[in-house]
């Protein structure tokens, strides 16, 4: 049992007698031998594990691993087995649970992360999957694989060569986009034993302490192997039985009761839940899931801001200013915001003010013809309005699309939390995606009626303002169209011409056809389609033999772009079977360009 203050002491780390599992299994063994010992030890007036101890442990853990899942204190449970107290706390994201154990009259707190991955119901279904655990004191990773309740393999790492990591050893997980636990496994699997640290703006790093696992690893062994003494292999299968009917060989389940120390009457008040934060939003964002997600992402952003300032990683010139002073400063210096880190701006503005800023920027970017990028949009923010929003907490956003704005704000906060600030373009794109991706049905109609007069106007602005950022397919999908798989065929000169897909645009009765072989396939198909639909169907009319390929291609592309802005629906008759049947699947200059403009 290692106290937190001494947990890097090698001598203690390797003391078998101090191993939590050893003691735990010893207790379980006693339960086997002395079947009468099934009754839990009476709880003492002062419990061995104090809530404050756990909260302090989590504070340190959160500093080491920003972004790691938070504990759900309200769901904490405890049990006593002989002289050992165990507190079990699930983690918020459902990643697993944290176990805390301490002997009565003991002083060393042992901590273990554990999760099950697989199928089970604890009643009738044998467990198939695996158990994973990390001893949070010495970071030994342990995995046990079960098939239908039977242990079929085991993996265990041992930590013997521990040294402080050098800067050059830090492994950047820049391409890693997983969970905290996944990052932990990633570090382990790369023989680099470290604490995954979420770096500001760069995703996960493995940092801290390095252990060369090397030959110390034991690979997955056949059933029964890899035990090596008392450990999770002995204990956790008893608590989390892989087989619901263990033939009477296992003692009773420990009796878990609520660990009330976090609650009223305990040592201190229960930590707030996410939805307790920013109460000014409660009456405004009606959908609970959207609201909590917004609050969670915003709270994470605030945490990132504080962490950055606490660690001295950023010089915040405005750290000493109150939010009101900060916004007052921007009121009188409209361009100053361009030079301030967005995380600072959004945190200083508060949960409501941040949404107000982002929504103002969104509409400036879309509706103001003089605004062609997100930096310019930032200069259009009305800071007086933001100040009012901060003061009242009331969002100046129509109720009709407040959910879309909340989703979009969440997306921006999440982007900042994940990748840090890279550019306002990136943040703006996240906002548009979040907003347009979640504005559906009548909300879309309200948005159009309020701001754009008609859907064509909105579509045109989305396409012209965000060319090269969002695909035609994406914008059409936002507006009720998008890629559709179809099977429309005609016969021309004895040959079948088939369109197997179309990109449904946002305009009615505007249709065009693309594909290979204009004369023999595209034009005949367009003529037939025009007869069927009763509307004109366009094909590119601009080919000119007196022009070069490059000029023709440019003209063709300009024509396609002009149709996109108008919201045309495109049928695609694809490659010419005459060529594909001969092994030629080349798309050619023109068709390739058309596909890039419309379908890719």
């Amino acid at each position: 049992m290692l106290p937190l203050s001494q947990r890097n002491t090698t001598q203690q780390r390797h003391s078998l007698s101090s191993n939590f599992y050893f003691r735990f299994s010893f207790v379980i063994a006693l339960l086997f031998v002395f079947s009468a010992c099934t009754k839990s030890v009476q709880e003492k007036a002062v419990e061995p594990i104090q809530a404050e101890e756990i909260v302090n442990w989590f504070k340190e853990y959160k500093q080491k691993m920003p972004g790691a899942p938070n504990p759900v204190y309200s769901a904490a449970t405890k049990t006593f087995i002989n002289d050992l107290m165990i507190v079990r706390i699930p983690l918020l994201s459902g990643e697993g649970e944290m176990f805390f154990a301490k002997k009565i009259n003991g002083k060393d707190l042992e901590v273990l992360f554990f999760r099950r991955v697989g199928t089970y119901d604890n009643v009738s279904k044998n467990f198939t999957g695996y158990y994973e655990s990390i001893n949070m004191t010495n970071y030994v990773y342990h995995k046990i694989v079960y098939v239908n309740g039977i242990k079929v393999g085991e993996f265990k790492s041992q930590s013997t060569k521990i040294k402080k990591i050098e800067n050059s050893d830090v492994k950047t997980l820049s391409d890693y986009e997983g969970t905290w636990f996944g990052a932990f496994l990633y570090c382990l699997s790369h023989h680099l034993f470290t604490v995954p640290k979420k770096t500001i703006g760069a995703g996960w790093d493995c940092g801290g302490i390095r252990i060369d696992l090397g030959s110390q690893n034991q690979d997955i062994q056949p059933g029964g192997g890899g035990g090596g003494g008392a450990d999770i292999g002995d204990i956790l299968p008893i608590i989390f039985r892989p087989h619901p009917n263990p033939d009477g060989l296992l003692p009773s389940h420990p009796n878990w009761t609520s660990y009330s120390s976090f609650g009223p009457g305990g040592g201190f008040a229960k930590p707030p839940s996410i939805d307790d934060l920013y109460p000014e939003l409660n009456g405004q964002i009606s959908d609970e899931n959207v609201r909590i997600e917004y609050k969670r992402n915003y709270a994470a952003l605030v945490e990132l801001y504080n962490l950055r300032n606490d660690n001295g990683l950023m010089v915040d010139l405005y750290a000493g200013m109150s939010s009101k002073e900060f916004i007052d400063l921007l009121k009188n210096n409209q361009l100053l915001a361009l030079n301030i880190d967005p995380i600072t701006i959004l945190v200083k503005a508060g949960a409501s003010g941040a949404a107000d800023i982002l929504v103002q920027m969104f509409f400036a970017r879309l509706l103001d013809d003089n605004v062609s990028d997100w930096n310019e949009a930032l200069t259009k923010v009305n800071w007086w309005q933001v100040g009012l929003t901060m003061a009242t907490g009331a969002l100046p956003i129509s109720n009709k699309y407040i959910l879309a704005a909340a989703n979009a704000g969440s997306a921006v906060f999440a982007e900042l939390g994940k990748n840090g600030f890279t550019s306002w373009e990136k943040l703006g794109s996240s906002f548009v995606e979040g907003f347009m991706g979640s504005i559906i049905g009548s909300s879309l109609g309200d948005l159009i009626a309020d701001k754009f007069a008609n859907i064509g106007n909105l579509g045109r602005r989305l396409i012209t303002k965000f060319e090269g950022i969002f695909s035609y397919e994406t914008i059409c999908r936002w507006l009720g169209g998008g890629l559709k798989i179809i099977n429309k065929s005609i016969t021309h000169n004895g040959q079948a011409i088939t369109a197997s897909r179309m990109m449904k645009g946002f305009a009615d009765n505007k249709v065009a056809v693309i594909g290979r072989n204009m004369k023999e396939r595209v034009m005949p198909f367009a003529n037939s389609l025009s007869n069927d639909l009763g509307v004109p169907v366009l094909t590119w009319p601009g080919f000119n033999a007196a022009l070069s390929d490059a000029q023709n291609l440019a003209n063709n592309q300009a024509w396609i772009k002009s149709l996109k802005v108008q919201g045309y629906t495109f049928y695609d008759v694809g490659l010419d079977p005459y060529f594909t049947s001969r092994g030629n699947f080349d798309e050619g200059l023109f068709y390739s360009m058309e596909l890039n403009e419309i379908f890719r």
Partner: protein
Amino acid sequence: MQNYFIDTPIYKIWISVIDILTPKSAYIISEFNYQFKDIVCSRECLVIAYIKKNITLELVYAHEYRNFSCRLIDIETNLGKAWRNTPPAMKKNLETLSELEIEIDKWMSFLKTEL
């Protein structure tokens, strides 16, 4: 000239290709008894076709790939016929008429062993 095929009006390319191909492919009629069928100039390609019994021989310059190739087509099935030997490797994105002539020469030599 940086890139003849990109910078030149397409009708001029048709004429250039026909000018090059006509003398180089004359042996197809004189030595192998093929008959001239037609020349098709389109946005996608220029095709000079010859015919013999139920076989069509096409000499194809494709604008969009800027390459040259030949093919045999069974008139009854409209499917391509395989060559007896390995044809010249397809070289795409030719940039000058000189490069095109080299490709045409390779194919004309190849056709003499195939027809």
